[in-house]
């Protein structure tokens, strides 16, 4: 039976105060740095317009279904008194193993918070420095050096300074701000802040977007550096490369966008038999497994599915509050910020000032903290637009980081039967230690990188697979479908019954296996050979990294602590038969 009386609880039941509030909170959780930095970089690197085709397929087959599943299971278990991931999964799964699997849904947001708040502090620091007019760069190297000093990438302990151009003070401010908001509670803290921050974020992004799209060709002496080519770099479904013959194999040397670059390259290689121009068409690019992995990964991480956050947020809904329209709205808000705003701001601005060669292949941090500061330093009015852009990133980051705290708070309150003040104190202590660890071991951002790989990627895959299997096969697609539509303002198209039961789990498992092959085993689809990735070598190789091993040990300690609390808690006992799912 699905309808059953809530399990009595001594804790006051928190609730969202409005439907729009919870939607903005979930959207705020999803909208982060990835929308404005990771997405454009991934799209341009993996096929531009061709990437977008795979991206929308992944949105329909992974993002929307798993999101709806999380919303539904969260509200369902929340109506029975469970707000934490171990509680939610234990209640629906009705087996001891599921509540321990649910511990992953607490580990993920808590550990990600430990390094995400550090990155959030970079954004605030950059915004302040732009506002103060301290960001004068004449080359990307200067911008890179500033970033390296700011975050202490040169040596461990190098990020501990408290000057205006060091990260320490900003980190202290954002860390405290997050906990103040979370202490104020669901409605007066998270919802109140997101109601202000999300419209502000969108308004700022639109202002920056208008500035970028009206840049034209900033330097007439370099006509190929213009907004049109920036858009082409991001959106063209076919890619043009100069390829070089090396060892009998044609290898891509550089990408060309726009008639000026292609014409100049034609003349340059006219008499060179070791170089050629090669056009990679849409279908050819869609045949590459890496493109599909990148597109699915972007959807997956962008929407924050598999973090344990959506289920926790949804658990504070009332029994007949809508989840279908709310889930769709939060998803579409994220997509609007990612595709429309992120897709039209970042790369066009970067290419207009620096050209394709300086931008191609840059990762999230390279694009955000090396390339873009340089762009704003060159842009007319760059002081104010630089401030606006990094303040926008800061807002995007803080609405995500506060959402990472709520699953931990819910877990501690539920498992230990303690109030918010005590749970905030305990979680503050745990995350402060973890954050201190990440900030101290700042050399090459090793701790951050290791935690992001094993928790921010690997464990998220695991939890998302468990959640979609739980919805389609443990709760059951019939009961899950009925539960999802309780109080729903719109109906989910019926084809999603099949997608949620079969396609999403299989697609997710396929993507996960491909990710393991590429990023853990180090398999190459081009050569058919494999070399174990540096992340594995750091732990088990001949020359292991002490920091990487300590980082994984930190995750293990947090996991053991949460599993111990779960085991000792009476809150996660087997629910009465009529209360569970049969």
């Amino acid at each position, binding site marked *: 039976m699905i309808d059953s009386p809530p399990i009595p609880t001594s804790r006051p039941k928190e609730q969202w105060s409005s*439907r*729009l509030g919870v*939607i903005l909170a979930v959207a705020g959780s999803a909208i982060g740095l990835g929308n404005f930095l990771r997405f454009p970089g991934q799209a341009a690197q993996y096929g*531009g*317009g061709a990437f*977008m*085709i795979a991206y*929308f397929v992944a949105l329909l087959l992974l993002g929307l279904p798993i999101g709806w599943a999380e919303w539904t299971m969260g509200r369902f278990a929340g*109506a029975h008194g469970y707000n934490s991931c171990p509680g939610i999964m234990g209640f629906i799964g009705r087996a001891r193993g599921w509540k321990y699997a649910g511990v992953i849904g607490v580990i993920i947001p808590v550990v990600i918070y430990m390094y995400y708040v550090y990155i959030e502090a970079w954004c605030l620091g950059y915004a302040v420095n732009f506002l103060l007019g301290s960001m004068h760069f004449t080359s990307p190297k200067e911008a890179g050096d500033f970033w390296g000093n700011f975050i202490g990438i040169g040596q461990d302990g190098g990020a501990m300074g408290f000057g205006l151009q060091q990260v320490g003070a900003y980190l202290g401010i954002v860390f405290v701000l997050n906990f103040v908001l979370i202490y104020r509670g669901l409605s007066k803290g998270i919802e109140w802040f997101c109601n202000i921050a999300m419209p502000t974020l969108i308004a700022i992004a639109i202002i920056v977007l208008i500035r970028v799209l009206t840049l034209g060709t900033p330097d007439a002496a370099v006509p190929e550096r213009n907004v*049109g*080519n920036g*858009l*082409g770099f*991001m*959106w*063209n*479904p*076919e890619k043009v490369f100069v390829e070089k013959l090396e060892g009998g194999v044609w290898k891509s040397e550089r990408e060309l966008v726009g008639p000026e670059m292609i014409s100049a390259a034609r003349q340059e290689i006219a008499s060179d038999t070791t170089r050629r121009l090669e056009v990679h068409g*849409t279908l050819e690019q869609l045949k590459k497994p890496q493109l599909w992995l990148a597109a699915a990964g972007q959807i997956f991480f962008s929407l924050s599915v598999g973090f344990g956050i959506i289920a926790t947020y949804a658990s504070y809904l*009332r*029994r*007949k*509050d*809508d989840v279908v*329209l*709310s889930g*769709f*709205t939060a998803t*579409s*808000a994220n*997509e*609007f910020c*990612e*595709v*429309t705003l992120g*897709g*039209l701001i970042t790369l066009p601005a970067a290419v207009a000032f620096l050209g394709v060669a300086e931008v191609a292949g840059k990762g999230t941090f390279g694009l955000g903290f090396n390339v873009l500061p340089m762009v704003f330093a060159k842009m007319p009015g760059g002081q104010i637009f630089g401030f606006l852009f990094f303040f926008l990133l800061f807002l995007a980051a803080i609405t995500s980081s506060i959402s990472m705290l709520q699953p931990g708070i819910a877990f501690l309150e539920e498992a230990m039967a303690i109030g918010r003040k005590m749970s905030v104190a305990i979680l503050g202590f745990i995350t402060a230690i973890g954050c201190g660890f990440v900030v101290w071991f700042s050399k090459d951002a090793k701790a951050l990188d290791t935690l992001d790989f094993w928790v921010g990627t690997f464990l998220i895959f695991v939890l998302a697979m468990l959640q979609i299997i739980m919805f389609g096969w443990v709760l059951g697609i019939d009961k899950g479908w009925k539960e999802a539509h309780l*109080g729903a*303002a*719109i109906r989910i198209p019926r084809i999603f019954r099949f997608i949620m039961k079969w396609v999403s789990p299989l697609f997710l498992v396929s993507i996960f296996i491909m990710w393991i092959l590429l990023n853990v085993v180090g398999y190459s689809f081009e050569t058919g050979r494999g070399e174990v990735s540096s992340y594995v070598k750091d732990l088990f190789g001949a020359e292991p990294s002490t920091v990487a091993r300590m980082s994984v040990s930190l995750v293990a300690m947090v996991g053991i602590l949460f599993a111990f609390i779960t085991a000792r808690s009476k809150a996660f006992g087997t629910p009465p038969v009529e209360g569970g799912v049969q």
Partner: protein
Amino acid sequence: MTFGGWVIMVLSVGLVTGAFGWSIWRVLTTPHPEERLHAPLGIEHEEEA
């Protein structure tokens, strides 16, 4: 930007912007279940009782 680039961009941006606008409009114009139940007869929501 090529013609194909324009097509992909307009479709992608149009699709997500349209979906966002439509869903926000639905959220703001669809009465909350509680409001529906409380409307003219003032019937209490069973879960709120």
